[in-house]
């Protein structure tokens, strides 16, 4: 991979993440303490990447979808469905391979359904995925009959709570998925085509980009990402909570993507920056948890931080920031349109 340029390290997203982490440190001085315990890292910082993983994974799929000028509101519901499927497989004693593949297959099916509505039937993404957002949670509850299906399967529990090289499994999965997805879109032409479709669908048609199959595939990928997140969420609490898994997470995922700099009007996107966006959101949540503010202030704090982040990276202010950074004699603005990372 190319070495990220200084400019991208100074991207407003990373500055914002740093800012939120500093904020957390101010309200809770032990925030950066990391200990090694039972073969894994332990600390608030680790919690941020661990708890941020599901939204990060959702945002990976969501980034590509939004880049095509779409949106997927159903990811939260698909998480619930996938979790329910995984849990059901676990309690009915299915072989591990089925237990792991079944939720992914279901997630892909959900994604294909969304993609079918959007790309073949031409329904607006917002409503097309609203259908599954509503019905999907019903399906999940149908599978679990409204209760929390608890399981003791070591593999699922490992996925949700295990660790690898000292890092929590969810974070490892998220990082692997991020790197994989990023390489997939940037080392092939897929990324370019996604952007082209998002920027000008009509021109994409004139250029013979096979927009339909690509859009279909992207929604399917979004469904798979949601399924992975759902499996992790189930493994985390050792049970499938169809009522609450992924509830309102679609908004967090979209927020992460937008904080990551992808426009809801489609076009240029960056998967790593979306993941940074997800981390910013989680850092905010964790910060609120450890800060000791009364919970009725949670939303206000969150709103305040979002506004600050937005102002930081606002289109109008960005040039001003740029100028400040440019004054330092670091690598004079090698302005590549290549995406970061």
């Amino acid at each position, binding site marked *: 991979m190319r070495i990220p340029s200084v400019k991208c390290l100074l991207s407003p997203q990373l500055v914002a993440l740093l800012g939120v982490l500093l904020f957390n440190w101010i309200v809770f001085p032990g925030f950066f303490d990391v200990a090694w315990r039972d073969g894994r890292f332990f600390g608030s910082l680790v919690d941020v990447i661990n708890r941020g993983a599901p939204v990060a994974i959702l945002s990976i799929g969501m980034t590509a979808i939004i880049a095509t000028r779409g949106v997927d509101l159903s990811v939260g519901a698909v998480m619930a469905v996938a979790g329910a499927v995984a849990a059901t497989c676990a309690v009915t004693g299915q072989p591990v391979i089925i237990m792991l593949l079944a939720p992914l297959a279901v997630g892909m099916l959900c994604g294909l359904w969304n993609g079918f509505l959007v790309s073949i039937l031409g329904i*607006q993404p*917002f409503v097309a995925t609203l259908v599954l957002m509503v019905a999907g949670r019903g399906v999940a509850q149908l599978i679990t009959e409204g209760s929390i299906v608890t399981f003791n399967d070591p593999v699922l529990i490992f996925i949700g709570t295990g660790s690898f090289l000292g890092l929590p499994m969810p974070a490892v999965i998220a990082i692997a998925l991020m790197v994989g997805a990023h390489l997939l879109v940037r080392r092939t032409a897929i990324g370019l085509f996604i952007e082209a479709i998002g920027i*000008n669908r009509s021109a994409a048609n004139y250029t013979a980009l096979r927009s339909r199959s690509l859009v279909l595939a992207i929604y399917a990928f979004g469904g798979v990402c949601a399924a992975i997140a759902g499996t992790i969420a189930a493994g985390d609490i050792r049970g499938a909570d169809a009522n609450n898994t992924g509830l309102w997470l679609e908004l967090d995922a979209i*927020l992460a993507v937008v904080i990551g700099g992808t426009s809801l009007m489609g076009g240029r996107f960056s998967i790593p920056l979306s993941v940074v966006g997800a981390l910013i959101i989680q850092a905010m949540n964790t910060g609120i948890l450890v800060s000791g503010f009364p919970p009725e202030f949670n939303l206000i704090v969150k709103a305040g931080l*979002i506004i600050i982040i937005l102002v930081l990276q606002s289109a109008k202010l960005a040039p001003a920031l740029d100028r400040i950074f440019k004054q330092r004699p670091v690598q004079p603005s090698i302005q590549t349109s290549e995406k970061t990372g």
Partner: protein
Amino acid sequence: MNPRYRPLAATTLIFVVAYGLCILQYPGMWSTRILGNFLTDNAFLGIAAVGATFVIISGGIDLSIGAVIGLAGVVVAVLVSHLGLHPIAAFGIVLTMSALFGAAMGAVIHFLQVPPFIVTLAGMFLARGLASILSQDSIPISHPFYKTIMDLYYRLPGGGRLSAIGLLMLLVFLIGGLIAHRTRFGSYVYALGGNPTSAALMGVPTGPVTIGIYALSSLLGGLAGIVYSLYTSAGYPLAAVGIELDSIAAVVIGGTLLTGGYGFVFGTLIGVMLQGLVQTYIVFDGTLSSWWTKIAIGVLLFLFILLQQLVFSAHKAGARLKKAAA
């Protein structure tokens, strides 16, 4: 007929047919009671959805409506029940506050060029947060004025009630329709949704219009909050959670394009009524478990959208795809 109105006609037709089918299955659904309930029960949703229609036609989105409804209700309740203000004065204060709240969001959207999705999401957090700081519990409002308004209704033959808030909703739709289709501001809203760059070059004052659109949306959110507080005689910080999605769905079912630039206020009324119809149908059925309820709502939503798509895909194919990428 002007082809522009075809989708609207199709949506209306779908509603009529769907209602007809419901009546065939449950004759009880053909009563003035149900018709009256449609208006009364959906009054606050309808009012909020009018605001959402403007926002969506302009190519934006407003996720803060539900929170504004909740906040407005709580503020009214605090002013009336705790501070002893007359409801009318409280209404005035709340409407002004909501309009300012929306204007502030519009200003951020316009001047800082931040996507409306995010600004209004922050607005949603802010409004909900303020509401739950003001009061965590729901505050009952027992002012006689509230009773008077809720007792104001026209009794239809057959036991139905044409309530004041139901009529207010119709009035808001009427005024909304006039603003959208018969005023300069309305045409600016469409222009902005069509192509903001062109609109600016053609002399549309994009800044004031953007601010106006979000102010209007929040103002109607505040009004919807007042109606909700009348409807439940209380202010509750968690009121109307998720209403923004319902109202957006109503707008879209009503034939408005989320990409902006195309839609009708009247279509939104049909969208709201269709949603009410689905819920009433499910209540009449009464056999669906919680999860089957969700699945049924999803499936019905899908059927409506599909039908609509089939009806006006021909209309869309030619014209819409040509939309310039700004």
